Structures are given as structure tokens and as C-alpha cells.
């Protein structure tokens, strides 16, 4: 587990049925590109989040294949429409094999 990797997700706790929900997601990560060199001229190995996905009640919302050109602390904002109460599951896949998972419940009122 890479140190200091903290996912953050912002969305409302409840919505009206059929209402559009704005989801803002980010994760603290340097997204080391593999193109930079350290002070000794040695290439710093690539270490990025290479995939991000969001599901709602196991149905896909968005799935992103990410390259090193995504800026550090990767940020994604998108919208979903929910017709039932349930759980959003967010997953970030690290080059080192770790998967960071965050879940958020939302109630349809």
C-alpha cells in the first residue's frame, strides 16, 4: 500500500427520484509519470493510478483507463441518475497492484 493515498468523494446523501447527482472524486496520488529523472539523472520509475471505476448497485457508471498524462491527485467529475436507493462504489487501481475502494450510500426520497 502506497503511503498517504486518500480517496475523496463528494455527492449528496439523498436525492429526489430521477434527479441528476453530481459526483466529484479525487485521490491523493503523485502520478509519477516514469518520464522524470532524479537529481542523479536516474529515471524515476512510473507509479500511477492506471484505472478508475464507479458502479451504482453493481451497474457501471463510468470506467476510465488512465495514462501518466492524467494530472497528480486524479480528479473526475461526472453525473448519474438514480431511481432507487443504493450504494456507489468507487475503485482506484494503482500500478503497484493496490485497489483503493470508497463507498457512498445515497437515499432516494
Amino acid at each position: 500500500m502506497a503511503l498517504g493515498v486518500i480517496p475523496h468523494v463528494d455527492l449528496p446523501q439523498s436525492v429526489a427520484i430521477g434527479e441528476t447527482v453530481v459526483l466529484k472524486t479525487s485521490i491523493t496520488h503523485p502520478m509519477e509519470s516514469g518520464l522524470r529523472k532524479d537529481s542523479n539523472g536516474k529515471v524515476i520509475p512510473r507509479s500511477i493510478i492506471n484505472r478508475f471505476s464507479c458502479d451504482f448497485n453493481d451497474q457501471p457508471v463510468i470506467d476510465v483507463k488512465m495514462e501518466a498524462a492524467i494530472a497528480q491527485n486524479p480528479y473526475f467529475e461526472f453525473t448519474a441518475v438514480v431511481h432507487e436507493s443504493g450504494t456507489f462504489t468507487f475503485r482506484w487501481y494503482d500500478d503497484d497492484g493496490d485497489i483503493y475502494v470508497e463507498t457512498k450510500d445515497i437515499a432516494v426520497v
Partner: protein
Amino acid sequence: MKLTRRDALTLGLGATAASLLPTRASSASADAIAEFTHGAEIGLGDMTLHVPSKVSVGAEVPIQITATGAVCVLVLATENPRPNVATFSFGPMLSAQTVTTRIRLSKTQDIIAIAKMDDGRFVKSQSKVAITQDL
């Protein structure tokens, strides 16, 4: 050193070759596009790519893609050392095929987004971002 006619010609050829070099980066983009579309024709369609026309540094450039009816969108930064930026796959729960993120650009260049629509067509949108300082 005396500059002979032959030397002058060689210099001129070298300069011409150097001026052609940037096409190498675009050819990497062309390869990525061909892989995404499998050579299918790319038309015009309902897609917008929002990018700032000018930013001071390229470390965190905001981009927003809206592609109504798209199932998948490929984003390329044509002059980056590696042009691939991201591939977005949109699921049925997404309300509008809109996504916002932040990307890295090594210098002034065109950003290309290519969407695969739900009817199998491909559409393209392209915008230039000017970087006023080097990263």
C-alpha cells in the same frame, strides 16, 4: 572553415529534416486513433471538448468532454511524449455523457477526443491549448 556549396546543401537538408520531426509525435497519435477506431471513418457529431485556450503551466489543465450518445471516448494530447491521456467508458447509469478531469501537457498542442457512439459511428473534436511557460 570555408562553407562550400555542398556543406550549404547538407545544412539545408538537415534543417528540413528537423522541421519535419514534430510529425513523429502526431504519428504516435495516429497509431492510437487507428487502434481505437480499427480504421473506421471518423465523422462530425454531437461532441464538445472544453479546454482553456491558454494556461501558464501544463501540470493541471482542466478538460471537459461531452459526447451525447457515446459509449467510449479516447483522449489524446498530440505533442506529449506519450500522447495517450485516457479512455472513458460510459455505463448506463451515467446521466449525461459528460466528464471533467485535469491533464498534463508538456507544451502547446492540440487535444483530440474521439468518441465511439452507441450506433457504432466515431466522431472527433479537437482543441488547441497554449502553454505560456515550460513545465
